[in-house]
């Protein structure tokens, strides 16, 4: 399968999955009814189900998955390790912590941008810290341990906030961020955060040639003409913005950024640059499908998307870690 065929296949599958997300649910809608609703010619009820509930929710899942998948692929290219990922490195947790802060102090309701901007800031702090550390510590294992520490610290700080939650409502709000969910997202939420995700992804795509060059290691990469400092800065900023905006939309969802690039890599000759677009599409596709699953599972309380992603992703992480060739440590 060529690069182009892979991308076409993933685009087709993504469209199909989003369409399926519009059809499936507590009130199943057949294809003609979904099409009519999309064309704006269905009953008020159908219109509401598709435009207010299912479509924005599916698109949110897709945007979040795309942001996390691309950030994962780019961070893996930068750090030259298949285990690097916003979740594992503590970036999503730090972003979620920052988001929780604004919820805790009620800032989110006074200014709409408070939530996305604070979670982006949280993500940027984490990525900057990791990139600064990556220059000093050569061992990627140490770097991942640093991420684990960052993650644990953010989780602890978040527990502290939960502990002192002023009322049950803000408690449940904060738990939503902690667990990760795309339930009840509207087009307004998307309009707010999607451009930020797009900005982050654009920055990451701009670094793609440098990611290929880094395959040779940092010294040879600067030898072939890569400006290392600029490359690091761009990847860190891009991944920070994209991940932060994704967390603002859906809370902390882990492991998408590790699983999607891992599946894609063999199809793109293991080139980090060519893995970016397919990782975005596959990340989005995976979350749309996982979210359909979450909605269809006959449980009393709806499962959180982040929980399902972790239930699938964590074993995959362990598996990839186990099979990794010890080359660049």
């Amino acid at each position, binding site marked *: 399968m060529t690069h182009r065929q892979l991308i076409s296949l993933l685009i087709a599958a993504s469209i199909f999955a989003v369409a399926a997300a519009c059809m499936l649910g507590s009130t199943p809608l057949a294809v003609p009814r979904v099409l009519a609703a999309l064309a704006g010619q269905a009953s008020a009820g159908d219109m509401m189900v598709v435009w207010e509930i299912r479509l924005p929710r599916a698109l949110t899942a897709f945007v979040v998955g795309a942001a996390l998948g691309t950030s994962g692929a780019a961070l893996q290219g930068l750090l030259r390790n298949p285990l690097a990922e916003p979740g594992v490195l503590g970036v999503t947790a730090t972003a979620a912590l920052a988001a929780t802060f604004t919820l805790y102090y009620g800032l989110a309701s006074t200014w709409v941008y408070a939530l996305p901007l604070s979670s982006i800031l949280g993500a940027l702090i984490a990525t900057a810290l990791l990139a600064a550390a990556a220059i000093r510590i050569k061992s990627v294992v140490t770097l991942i341990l640093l991420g684990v520490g960052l993650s644990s610290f953010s989780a602890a700080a978040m527990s502290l906030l939960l502990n002192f939650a002023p009322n049950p409502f803000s408690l449940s709000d904060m738990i939503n961020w902690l667990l990760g969910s795309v339930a009840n997202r509207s087009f307004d939420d998307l309009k707010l955060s999607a451009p930020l995700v797009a900005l982050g992804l654009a920055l990451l795509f701009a670094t793609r040639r440098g990611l290929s060059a880094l395959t*040779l290691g940092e010294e040879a990469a600067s030898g072939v003409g890569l*400006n290392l400092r600029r490359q690091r800065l761009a990847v860190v900023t891009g991944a920070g913005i994209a991940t932060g905006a994704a967390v603002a939309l859906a809370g902390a969802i882990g492991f998408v950024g590790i699983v999607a690039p891992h599946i894609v890599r063999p199809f793109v000759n293991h080139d980090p*640059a060519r893995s970016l677009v397919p990782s975005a599409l596959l990340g989005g596709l995976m979350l749309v499908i996982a979210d359909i699953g979450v909605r269809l599972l006959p449980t009393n309380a709806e499962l959180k998307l982040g929980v399902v992603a972790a239930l699938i992703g964590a074993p995959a992480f362990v598996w990839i870690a186990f099979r990794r060739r010890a080359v660049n440590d």
Partner: protein
Amino acid sequence: MTELCARNISVHANTKALVEHASLSLRGGELVALLGANGAGKTTLLRAILGLIGLSAGVASLAGIDIRKLSSMERARQVSYLPQRRPLAWPNTVRDVVALGRFAHGAALGRLGKLDAQAVDAAIESCDLSSLADRQTDTLSGGELARVHVARAIAAAAPFLLADEPVAALDPRHQLGIIKLVREYVNDGGGALLVLHDVALAARFADRLIWMTGGRIVADGSPEETCTVQQMREVYGVRAKIRSDADGFDIRIIGAV
């Protein structure tokens, strides 16, 4: 004619001098070997010439221009660099790794322009890698991998090549193969500076030998002039017997000083 030139370069790590007052020049059509014991400062000198590390004194220049004033891309189009440690993070195909040598020319993997593709094909051909071009690098032997790295460096088609121990850990046949590749590059007009540990190999193929010890350049001249018993003692701390004939130098290490 362009010249890669180091004038009075010093490099310090904290207070320790890694390289002191080193000067050398490299022109097209010249193969120069940089010799010295482990820790003599050879790698540091290469990095300093490329502007990859900070200098505490001196200047490295390319055609009269301070190399640190050039952007990474401009420098890379003029000087190709093969570092000592050559990790490959991903199991890319041979062709993709070689194509990374065209980075400074704007090449993107999988979508090479005509010129880039030609340079990559030529490098693959000259390094005898045609049959391996679509193989993943993690399936290659050490000798094949060394040729891939040399091909990557040659694909840049830069006027200068700095290579840090390009033949380390290779068997004699592969060492010869790599040196002959570099020799061809030099015969085509390139200027190459190689860090080598095999003095006999260096003396046979290089036009000039530069000897380093304790961060200083102690000799710079033709193999006939500089490859002496005394030099071996001073630079490597060994007693040696040296004979030369039409096939090159026969250097026998008898023992440590």
